[in-house]
Protein backbone atom coordinates (compact mmCIF):
# COMPACT_ATOMS: atom_id res chain seq x y z
CA UNK A 1 0.00 0.00 0.00
CA UNK A 2 1.35 3.41 -0.98
CA UNK A 3 1.42 5.83 1.92
CA UNK A 4 -0.32 9.07 0.92
CA UNK A 5 1.58 12.30 1.43
CA UNK A 6 -0.15 14.81 3.71
CA UNK A 7 0.53 18.08 1.97
CA UNK A 8 0.91 21.23 4.06
CA UNK A 9 -1.44 23.43 1.92
CA UNK A 10 -4.24 20.88 2.39
CA UNK A 11 -3.59 20.21 6.06
CA UNK A 12 -6.98 21.45 7.33
CA UNK A 13 -8.89 19.62 4.60
CA UNK A 14 -7.02 16.35 5.22
CA UNK A 15 -7.37 16.75 8.98
CA UNK A 16 -11.15 17.28 8.76
CA UNK A 17 -11.54 14.32 6.43
CA UNK A 18 -9.62 11.87 8.60
CA UNK A 19 -11.46 13.02 11.73
CA UNK A 20 -14.84 12.39 10.08
CA UNK A 21 -13.75 9.04 8.65
CA UNK A 22 -12.37 7.98 12.05
CA UNK A 23 -15.61 8.83 13.84
CA UNK A 24 -17.58 6.84 11.27
CA UNK A 25 -15.21 3.88 11.27
CA UNK A 26 -17.15 1.78 13.76
CA UNK A 27 -20.76 2.87 13.37
CA UNK A 28 -23.09 5.07 11.35
CA UNK A 29 -23.84 8.58 12.60
CA UNK A 30 -25.66 11.69 11.47
CA UNK A 31 -24.08 15.10 10.93
CA UNK A 32 -24.76 16.51 14.36
CA UNK A 33 -23.42 13.37 16.08
CA UNK A 34 -20.23 13.47 14.02
CA UNK A 35 -19.47 17.08 14.96
CA UNK A 36 -20.35 16.52 18.60
CA UNK A 37 -18.25 13.39 18.94
CA UNK A 38 -15.19 15.02 17.39
CA UNK A 39 -15.58 17.99 19.70
CA UNK A 40 -16.11 15.91 22.83
CA UNK A 41 -13.37 13.37 22.13
CA UNK A 42 -10.86 16.15 21.53
CA UNK A 43 -11.94 18.09 24.64
CA UNK A 44 -13.08 20.92 22.41
CA UNK A 45 -9.80 21.16 20.50
CA UNK A 46 -11.41 20.29 17.17
CA UNK A 47 -14.49 22.45 17.15
CA UNK A 48 -16.48 21.50 14.12
CA UNK A 49 -18.72 24.14 12.68
CA UNK A 50 -21.51 22.40 10.81
CA UNK A 51 -21.06 24.88 8.00
CA UNK A 52 -17.74 23.26 7.21
CA UNK A 53 -19.02 19.79 7.96
CA UNK A 54 -21.69 19.53 5.23
CA UNK A 55 -19.48 20.24 2.21
CA UNK A 56 -16.95 17.67 3.48
CA UNK A 57 -19.61 15.05 4.18
CA UNK A 58 -21.25 15.55 0.81
CA UNK A 59 -17.90 15.47 -0.98
CA UNK A 60 -16.91 12.22 0.77
CA UNK A 61 -20.31 10.81 -0.16
CA UNK A 62 -19.87 11.79 -3.81
CA UNK A 63 -16.46 10.10 -3.83
CA UNK A 64 -18.05 6.92 -2.49
CA UNK A 65 -16.04 6.96 0.75
CA UNK A 66 -19.15 7.30 2.91
CA UNK A 67 -22.78 6.50 2.21
CA UNK A 68 -25.69 8.58 3.40
CA UNK A 69 -29.05 6.94 4.09
CA UNK A 70 -32.26 8.64 5.17
CA UNK A 71 -34.07 7.19 8.14
CA UNK A 72 -37.59 8.06 9.19
CA UNK A 73 -37.67 8.88 12.88
CA UNK A 74 -41.16 9.70 13.98
CA UNK A 75 -43.97 10.96 11.74
CA UNK A 76 -42.39 14.28 10.75
CA UNK A 77 -38.73 13.59 11.24
CA UNK A 78 -36.09 12.29 8.90
CA UNK A 79 -32.41 11.96 9.54
CA UNK A 80 -29.52 11.32 7.25
CA UNK A 81 -27.10 8.78 8.63
CA UNK A 82 -23.62 8.32 7.23
CA UNK A 83 -21.58 5.16 7.27
CA UNK A 84 -18.19 4.26 5.91
CA UNK A 85 -18.07 2.22 2.70
CA UNK A 86 -15.46 -0.47 2.01
CA UNK A 87 -13.68 2.06 -0.20
CA UNK A 88 -13.83 4.58 2.65
CA UNK A 89 -12.32 2.12 5.11
CA UNK A 90 -9.45 1.44 2.75
CA UNK A 91 -8.95 5.16 2.17
CA UNK A 92 -9.08 5.95 5.91
CA UNK A 93 -6.47 3.27 6.66
CA UNK A 94 -4.17 4.70 4.00
CA UNK A 95 -4.72 8.23 5.28
CA UNK A 96 -3.88 7.15 8.83
CA UNK A 97 -0.55 5.78 7.58
CA UNK A 98 0.01 9.13 5.87
CA UNK A 99 -0.67 11.01 9.09
CA UNK A 100 1.63 8.72 11.09
CA UNK A 101 4.40 9.41 8.64
CA UNK A 102 3.63 13.13 8.73
CA UNK A 103 3.84 13.35 12.53
CA UNK A 104 6.95 11.16 12.68
CA UNK A 105 8.74 13.53 10.34
CA UNK A 106 7.31 16.51 12.19
CA UNK A 107 8.44 15.35 15.64
CA UNK A 108 11.81 14.24 14.30
CA UNK A 109 12.40 17.90 13.54
CA UNK A 110 10.60 19.70 16.35
CA UNK A 111 11.76 17.10 18.88
CA UNK A 112 15.18 18.72 18.64
CA UNK A 113 13.82 21.49 20.88
CA UNK A 114 13.53 19.04 23.79
CA UNK A 115 17.01 17.58 23.37
Amino acid at each position, binding site marked *: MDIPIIEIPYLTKNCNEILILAVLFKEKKHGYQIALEIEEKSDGLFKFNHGTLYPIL*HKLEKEGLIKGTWKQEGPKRQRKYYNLTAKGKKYATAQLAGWEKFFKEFFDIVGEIKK
Partner: protein
Amino acid sequence: MKQFTSLLKSINERLDLPQPTKSRIILEIASDLDDLYQLYLSRGFSETEATKRAEEKIHLTDEALTDLVQVHQSLVKKLLDKITAQAQSRWERVVFVLLLIFIVAISIQGIFTVQFFVQASTWIYPVMGIFLTALIISSPKFYQLYIKKDHQVKKLRTGLSLILGMGVLNLVIGILGYVMELFLAEDTALLFVNHLAYIITTQEAGSGQTLSNITTWMIKTSSLIMFTLVSTIIIAFIWYILMNKVLKIEQAEAAVLLED
Protein backbone atom coordinates in the same frame (compact mmCIF):
# COMPACT_ATOMS: atom_id res chain seq x y z
CA MET B 1 -38.73 24.01 14.09
CA LYS B 2 -40.53 27.30 13.49
CA GLN B 3 -37.71 29.26 15.12
CA PHE B 4 -35.30 28.23 12.33
CA THR B 5 -37.54 29.11 9.40
CA SER B 6 -35.74 32.35 8.52
CA LEU B 7 -32.31 30.67 8.64
CA LEU B 8 -33.50 27.74 6.50
CA LYS B 9 -35.16 30.15 4.05
CA SER B 10 -31.95 32.14 3.74
CA ILE B 11 -29.91 28.95 3.06
CA ASN B 12 -32.56 27.87 0.56
CA GLU B 13 -32.23 31.18 -1.29
CA ARG B 14 -28.44 31.14 -1.26
CA LEU B 15 -28.04 27.56 -2.47
CA ASP B 16 -27.83 27.63 -6.24
CA LEU B 17 -28.83 24.02 -6.81
CA PRO B 18 -31.81 22.16 -8.31
CA GLN B 19 -34.74 21.97 -5.90
CA PRO B 20 -34.54 18.23 -5.05
CA THR B 21 -30.87 18.49 -4.05
CA LYS B 22 -31.57 21.71 -2.20
CA SER B 23 -34.51 20.13 -0.35
CA ARG B 24 -32.39 17.23 0.84
CA ILE B 25 -29.67 19.58 2.10
CA ILE B 26 -32.24 21.77 3.88
CA LEU B 27 -33.85 18.70 5.42
CA GLU B 28 -30.47 17.52 6.72
CA ILE B 29 -29.63 20.95 8.16
CA ALA B 30 -33.10 21.28 9.71
CA SER B 31 -32.72 17.92 11.43
CA ASP B 32 -29.29 18.87 12.82
CA LEU B 33 -30.58 22.29 13.93
CA ASP B 34 -33.35 20.64 15.87
CA ASP B 35 -30.91 18.21 17.50
CA LEU B 36 -28.60 21.03 18.53
CA TYR B 37 -31.52 23.04 19.86
CA GLN B 38 -32.63 20.08 22.02
CA LEU B 39 -29.04 19.61 23.20
CA TYR B 40 -28.72 23.22 24.34
CA LEU B 41 -32.12 23.08 26.03
CA SER B 42 -31.01 19.96 27.92
CA ARG B 43 -27.89 21.84 29.00
CA GLY B 44 -30.10 24.40 30.70
CA PHE B 45 -30.14 27.20 28.13
CA SER B 46 -33.30 29.21 27.54
CA GLU B 47 -35.25 28.65 24.31
CA THR B 48 -33.92 31.91 22.81
CA GLU B 49 -30.34 31.12 23.80
CA ALA B 50 -30.64 27.52 22.55
CA THR B 51 -31.94 28.79 19.19
CA LYS B 52 -29.14 31.34 18.93
CA ARG B 53 -26.44 28.80 19.77
CA ALA B 54 -27.82 26.19 17.39
CA GLU B 55 -27.90 28.77 14.56
CA GLU B 56 -24.34 29.86 15.32
CA LYS B 57 -23.15 26.28 15.22
CA ILE B 58 -24.81 25.57 11.87
CA HIS B 59 -23.71 28.88 10.33
CA LEU B 60 -23.04 28.27 6.65
CA THR B 61 -20.59 30.78 5.23
CA ASP B 62 -20.66 31.79 1.56
CA GLU B 63 -17.51 29.74 1.10
CA ALA B 64 -19.16 26.64 2.59
CA LEU B 65 -22.22 27.14 0.36
CA THR B 66 -20.00 27.49 -2.72
CA ASP B 67 -18.27 24.24 -1.74
CA LEU B 68 -21.62 22.51 -1.34
CA VAL B 69 -22.81 23.75 -4.73
CA GLN B 70 -19.59 22.59 -6.37
CA VAL B 71 -19.92 19.13 -4.84
CA HIS B 72 -23.43 18.67 -6.20
CA GLN B 73 -23.18 20.21 -9.64
CA SER B 74 -22.52 17.43 -12.10
CA LEU B 75 -23.09 18.17 -15.75
CA VAL B 76 -25.43 15.25 -16.43
CA LYS B 77 -27.54 15.87 -13.32
CA LYS B 78 -27.77 19.54 -14.13
CA LEU B 79 -29.03 18.71 -17.61
CA LEU B 80 -31.56 16.12 -16.42
CA ASP B 81 -32.95 18.41 -13.71
CA LYS B 82 -33.27 21.17 -16.27
CA ILE B 83 -35.20 18.94 -18.66
CA THR B 84 -37.65 17.70 -16.01
CA ALA B 85 -38.05 21.11 -14.41
CA GLN B 86 -39.06 22.62 -17.71
CA ALA B 87 -42.53 21.14 -17.81
CA GLN B 88 -44.03 21.84 -14.45
CA SER B 89 -47.34 23.35 -15.45
CA ARG B 90 -50.46 21.27 -15.92
CA TRP B 91 -50.87 22.27 -19.57
CA GLU B 92 -47.31 21.37 -20.44
CA ARG B 93 -47.80 17.93 -18.92
CA VAL B 94 -51.10 17.47 -20.77
CA VAL B 95 -49.39 18.32 -24.08
CA PHE B 96 -46.64 15.78 -23.35
CA VAL B 97 -49.13 13.05 -22.49
CA LEU B 98 -51.15 13.78 -25.67
CA LEU B 99 -47.95 13.64 -27.68
CA LEU B 100 -47.11 10.29 -26.14
CA ILE B 101 -50.58 8.92 -26.92
CA PHE B 102 -50.26 10.18 -30.51
CA ILE B 103 -46.86 8.51 -30.99
CA VAL B 104 -48.07 5.24 -29.51
CA ALA B 105 -51.29 5.33 -31.56
CA ILE B 106 -49.60 5.89 -34.91
CA SER B 107 -46.93 3.31 -34.14
CA ILE B 108 -49.19 0.62 -32.78
CA GLN B 109 -50.84 -0.16 -36.11
CA GLY B 110 -47.55 -0.87 -37.82
CA ILE B 111 -45.69 -2.46 -34.97
CA PHE B 112 -48.18 -4.89 -33.50
CA THR B 113 -48.70 -7.05 -36.54
CA VAL B 114 -47.15 -10.48 -37.03
CA GLN B 115 -45.69 -9.36 -40.35
CA PHE B 116 -43.73 -6.61 -38.61
CA PHE B 117 -41.95 -9.05 -36.31
CA VAL B 118 -41.45 -11.74 -38.97
CA GLN B 119 -39.66 -9.21 -41.17
CA ALA B 120 -37.66 -7.60 -38.40
CA SER B 121 -34.07 -8.34 -37.53
CA THR B 122 -33.53 -10.78 -34.64
CA TRP B 123 -32.02 -7.82 -32.78
CA ILE B 124 -35.58 -6.72 -32.11
CA TYR B 125 -35.93 -9.40 -29.41
CA PRO B 126 -33.29 -8.05 -26.97
CA VAL B 127 -34.77 -4.57 -27.58
CA MET B 128 -38.23 -5.95 -26.73
CA GLY B 129 -36.81 -7.64 -23.63
CA ILE B 130 -35.29 -4.39 -22.38
CA PHE B 131 -38.50 -2.50 -23.15
CA LEU B 132 -40.63 -4.99 -21.23
CA THR B 133 -38.16 -4.98 -18.31
CA ALA B 134 -38.37 -1.17 -18.19
CA LEU B 135 -42.18 -1.39 -18.13
CA ILE B 136 -42.07 -3.97 -15.32
CA ILE B 137 -39.61 -1.85 -13.31
CA SER B 138 -41.77 1.26 -13.80
CA SER B 139 -45.01 -0.36 -12.62
CA PRO B 140 -44.22 -0.48 -8.85
CA LYS B 141 -42.86 3.06 -9.11
CA PHE B 142 -46.14 4.25 -10.64
CA TYR B 143 -48.02 2.41 -7.91
CA GLN B 144 -45.85 3.97 -5.19
CA LEU B 145 -46.11 7.52 -6.53
CA TYR B 146 -49.67 7.69 -7.88
CA ILE B 147 -51.74 5.06 -6.02
CA LYS B 148 -50.12 4.21 -2.68
CA LYS B 149 -48.77 7.76 -2.29
CA ASP B 150 -46.39 6.60 0.43
CA HIS B 151 -43.79 9.27 -0.09
CA GLN B 152 -40.48 8.84 1.66
CA VAL B 153 -37.77 11.22 0.53
CA LYS B 154 -35.07 8.57 0.75
CA LYS B 155 -36.98 6.20 -1.57
CA LEU B 156 -38.44 8.70 -4.03
CA ARG B 157 -35.70 8.51 -6.63
CA THR B 158 -34.92 4.83 -6.21
CA GLY B 159 -35.16 3.04 -9.54
CA LEU B 160 -35.52 6.17 -11.68
CA SER B 161 -31.93 6.05 -12.93
CA LEU B 162 -32.43 2.39 -13.77
CA ILE B 163 -35.46 3.25 -15.95
CA LEU B 164 -33.46 5.94 -17.73
CA GLY B 165 -30.55 3.52 -18.08
CA MET B 166 -32.90 0.97 -19.66
CA GLY B 167 -33.94 3.60 -22.21
CA VAL B 168 -30.33 4.31 -23.11
CA LEU B 169 -29.52 0.58 -23.30
CA ASN B 170 -32.60 0.05 -25.47
CA LEU B 171 -31.39 2.68 -27.93
CA VAL B 172 -27.80 1.42 -27.92
CA ILE B 173 -28.85 -2.20 -28.59
CA GLY B 174 -31.17 -1.06 -31.40
CA ILE B 175 -28.45 0.99 -33.09
CA LEU B 176 -25.92 -1.79 -32.55
CA GLY B 177 -28.36 -4.21 -34.22
CA TYR B 178 -28.75 -1.80 -37.14
CA VAL B 179 -24.99 -1.60 -37.66
CA MET B 180 -24.46 -5.33 -37.17
CA GLU B 181 -27.13 -6.13 -39.76
CA LEU B 182 -25.30 -3.84 -42.14
CA PHE B 183 -22.13 -5.89 -41.76
CA LEU B 184 -23.96 -9.20 -41.78
CA ALA B 185 -25.48 -8.30 -45.16
CA GLU B 186 -22.07 -9.39 -46.48
CA ASP B 187 -22.09 -6.84 -49.18
CA THR B 188 -19.61 -4.07 -48.88
CA ALA B 189 -21.61 -2.09 -51.41
CA LEU B 190 -23.95 -1.25 -48.57
CA LEU B 191 -21.19 0.62 -46.82
CA PHE B 192 -20.48 2.94 -49.71
CA VAL B 193 -23.27 5.22 -50.78
CA ASN B 194 -21.64 6.19 -54.08
CA HIS B 195 -21.13 2.57 -55.08
CA LEU B 196 -24.70 1.81 -54.03
CA ALA B 197 -26.09 4.57 -56.23
CA TYR B 198 -23.94 3.30 -59.11
CA ILE B 199 -25.30 -0.25 -58.80
CA ILE B 200 -28.89 0.93 -58.65
CA THR B 201 -28.58 3.22 -61.67
CA THR B 202 -26.42 1.03 -63.95
CA GLN B 203 -27.80 -2.39 -63.00
CA GLU B 204 -24.54 -4.09 -63.98
CA ALA B 205 -24.07 -7.88 -63.85
CA GLY B 206 -24.46 -9.30 -60.36
CA SER B 207 -26.15 -6.21 -59.06
CA GLY B 208 -29.40 -8.17 -58.64
CA GLN B 209 -28.01 -9.98 -55.60
CA THR B 210 -26.71 -6.73 -54.18
CA LEU B 211 -30.10 -5.08 -54.59
CA SER B 212 -31.75 -8.08 -52.96
CA ASN B 213 -29.32 -7.77 -50.01
CA ILE B 214 -30.05 -4.07 -49.76
CA THR B 215 -33.81 -4.64 -49.74
CA THR B 216 -33.58 -7.40 -47.10
CA TRP B 217 -31.37 -5.20 -44.93
CA MET B 218 -33.73 -2.26 -45.29
CA ILE B 219 -36.81 -4.30 -44.37
CA LYS B 220 -35.07 -5.94 -41.40
CA THR B 221 -33.55 -2.80 -39.98
CA SER B 222 -36.44 -0.43 -40.61
CA SER B 223 -38.64 -2.58 -38.36
CA LEU B 224 -35.86 -2.77 -35.78
CA ILE B 225 -35.17 0.95 -35.77
CA MET B 226 -38.88 1.80 -35.71
CA PHE B 227 -39.47 -0.40 -32.69
CA THR B 228 -36.28 0.82 -30.97
CA LEU B 229 -37.20 4.48 -31.37
CA VAL B 230 -40.81 4.07 -30.29
CA SER B 231 -39.92 1.93 -27.26
CA THR B 232 -37.13 4.35 -26.26
CA ILE B 233 -39.52 7.31 -26.53
CA ILE B 234 -42.04 5.48 -24.34
CA ILE B 235 -39.37 4.65 -21.72
CA ALA B 236 -38.17 8.26 -21.80
CA PHE B 237 -41.73 9.51 -21.27
CA ILE B 238 -42.28 7.11 -18.38
CA TRP B 239 -39.05 8.35 -16.75
CA TYR B 240 -40.03 11.94 -17.45
CA ILE B 241 -43.50 11.58 -15.89
CA LEU B 242 -42.14 9.78 -12.81
CA MET B 243 -39.30 12.31 -12.42
CA ASN B 244 -41.76 15.19 -12.62
CA LYS B 245 -43.89 13.65 -9.90
CA VAL B 246 -40.82 13.11 -7.71
CA LEU B 247 -39.74 16.73 -8.25
CA LYS B 248 -43.20 17.97 -7.28
CA ILE B 249 -43.21 15.88 -4.09
CA GLU B 250 -39.71 17.07 -3.18
CA GLN B 251 -40.70 20.69 -3.77
CA ALA B 252 -43.81 20.24 -1.63
CA GLU B 253 -41.69 18.67 1.14
CA ALA B 254 -39.31 21.62 1.01
CA ALA B 255 -42.21 24.08 1.18
CA VAL B 256 -43.69 22.31 4.22
CA LEU B 257 -40.29 22.26 5.87
CA LEU B 258 -39.79 25.97 5.37
CA GLU B 259 -43.27 26.78 6.66
CA ASP B 260 -43.01 24.64 9.83
